[in-house]
């Protein structure tokens, strides 16, 4: 009675398990502005869903979760649409280029090794930096509250301020050349295409540290960008590969939309630095899991094509 058969995955699953997974990932999405693909796809594969179907159906459910999350953050005034559109344009261009890069890497051989090592290094660097920075920030919060201290402008900041077409991004409260989000969006697009993920967990740190956007606006804007990326991926996967399982996506999104709303509300109760520490911890856990997977002898020397 609690089972449901998935027509494309051709596998029967337990309803509470799938809805629970959706809720968990939706919670992360609402809290941190990440799509959660880097977490959801491996979990779905673990319960027997074919890897290609898991990844494509996850994109479909992220459409609902990010629509729900974007709406919630929009109501709170946390979406910078202007910035989101620039990042999206850069992401689409970068993603298209990334697909070509991965083709070349595969022809050269050992592409999977490069991808996985890049993944581990990126996650390690981003997670560690975010964790340490947020921890220091929390510790010195009291000092900052007493009065702003004059900060020395970094070389990066000087470079950014020298770029042409300086524009004000009202919602984020920053002045920046649109070239910056276009280039950074493109960079994330390339990485996302190579790694086969939505890129939210890379985009969020980039928005925080390189675009200097406030954390709460980062979450809403990231979700806005993820929404459009995943809409495109869902249609393309359904059309080209027939790997989108709508029943699976529907069950996941029932859980994830509720989770996203709960996450958005929780995020308001937490400080930006606390949010960053939580996200950094999750990123580091995923990194360690991947590293262990690379080092330990696998139980099976064969894995289904399309998987890890």
């Amino acid at each position, binding site marked *: *009675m609690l*089972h*449901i*058969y998935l*027509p*494309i995955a*051709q*596998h*029967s*699953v337990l309803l509470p398990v799938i809805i629970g997974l959706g809720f968990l990932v939706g919670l992360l999405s609402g809290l941190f502005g990440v799509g959660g693909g880097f977490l959801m796809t491996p979990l779905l594969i673990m319960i*027997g869903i074919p890897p290609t179907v898991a990844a494509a159906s996850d994109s*479909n*459910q992220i*459409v*609902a*979760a*990010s*629509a*729900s*999350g*974007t*709406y*919630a953050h929009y*109501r709170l005034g946390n979406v910078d649409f202007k910035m989101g559109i620039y990042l999206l344009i850069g992401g689409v261009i970068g993603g298209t280029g990334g697909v070509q890069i991965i083709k070349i890497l595969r022809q050269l051989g050992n592409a*999977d*090794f490069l991808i*996985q*090592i890049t993944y581990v290094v990126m996650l390690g660097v981003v997670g560690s930096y975010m964790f340490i920075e947020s921890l220091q920030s929390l510790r010195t919060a009291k000092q900052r509250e007493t009065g702003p201290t004059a900060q020395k402008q970094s070389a990066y900041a000087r470079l950014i301020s020298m770029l042409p077409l300086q524009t004000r991004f009202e919602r984020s409260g920053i002045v920046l050349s649109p070239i910056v989000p276009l280039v950074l969006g493109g960079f994330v697009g390339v990485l996302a295409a190579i790694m086969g993920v939505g890129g939210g967990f890379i985009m969020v740190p980039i928005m925080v540290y390189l675009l200097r956007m406030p954390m709460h606006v980062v979450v809403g804007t990231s979700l806005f960008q993820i929404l459009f990326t995943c*809409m495109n991926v*869902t*249609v*393309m*996967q*359904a*059309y*080209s590969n*027939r790997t*989108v399982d*709508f*029943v699976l*996506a*529907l069950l996941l*999104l029932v859980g994830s*939309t*509720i989770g*996203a*709303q709960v996450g958005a*509300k929780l995020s308001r109760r937490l400080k930006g630095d606390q949010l960053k520490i939580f996200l950094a911890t999750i990123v580091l856990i995923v990194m360690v899991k991947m590293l262990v*997977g*690379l*080092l330990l*002898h*696998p139980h*099976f*020397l*064969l*894995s*289904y*094509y399309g*998987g890890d």
Partner: protein
Amino acid sequence: MLNQKIKTTGWFLILLILTASAAHAAQNSEFKIKPNQLGIGTFFAGQDITLCGTLPTGGEIMIEVIGPPKDAKFNIKGRVGPFWMNRGKVELEKAPFLYVLLLPGTQKWGAQLPSLGVGVEHLEQIITIRPENLDHKMIFEQFIKLKRSEHLYGQKEAAIHYVTENQKTKKFEATFHFPSSTIPGEYRIATTVLQDNRIMNRAVHHFQVEEVGVIKSIHELAYNKELIYGILCVVIALFVGSVMGLFFGRSEAH
């Protein structure tokens, strides 16, 4: 001398009649599958089927449940320095999606199964591994290990039960559980009847597994109208996401 010849001929005729009747009984052994087909609906969670019939009193029966062939493409993991990673691709052709051999519990069958042409190990003769320059033995062993872990391949001892019916025949019955990951298609249920450890009869029965209802409709839409299906998936996801957003927004306002 004449009597001796008559006696010998008599015994020969008796033996001939007995052997012929045993073979006849074996060839005509009844076999039934209940239910006679399987429907995969929305709430399908796997299902038992019963395999039963009769065979000669001294006979034994083995039953193979063989799924439809399904593309089996895999990554092969290998070691590069300290790391384990995908080192290549392999494709196993003609590999059945499911293979389960049901055995009677009257003796240990393991050693003689390959000579009878049944069993998981025998599949090595059927499956083709591409590309050909790979280590076939290792690939086949890993493939079987993976399939066994998914409960899609296996051999079950003492899975067939006998009940004596009369002096000439006995009834047999076995239950097979189609797992929750069953795919639709035409399954083959092959029976091998043995008498004194020799094959007396082989037969193949076809068993249809079909998707029904909503599951069938969604599958057909996804495979026949791909673009419409993809757009519908996005539109419904957007609708559900927005409705949930509105619902939570209002409840927050109150």
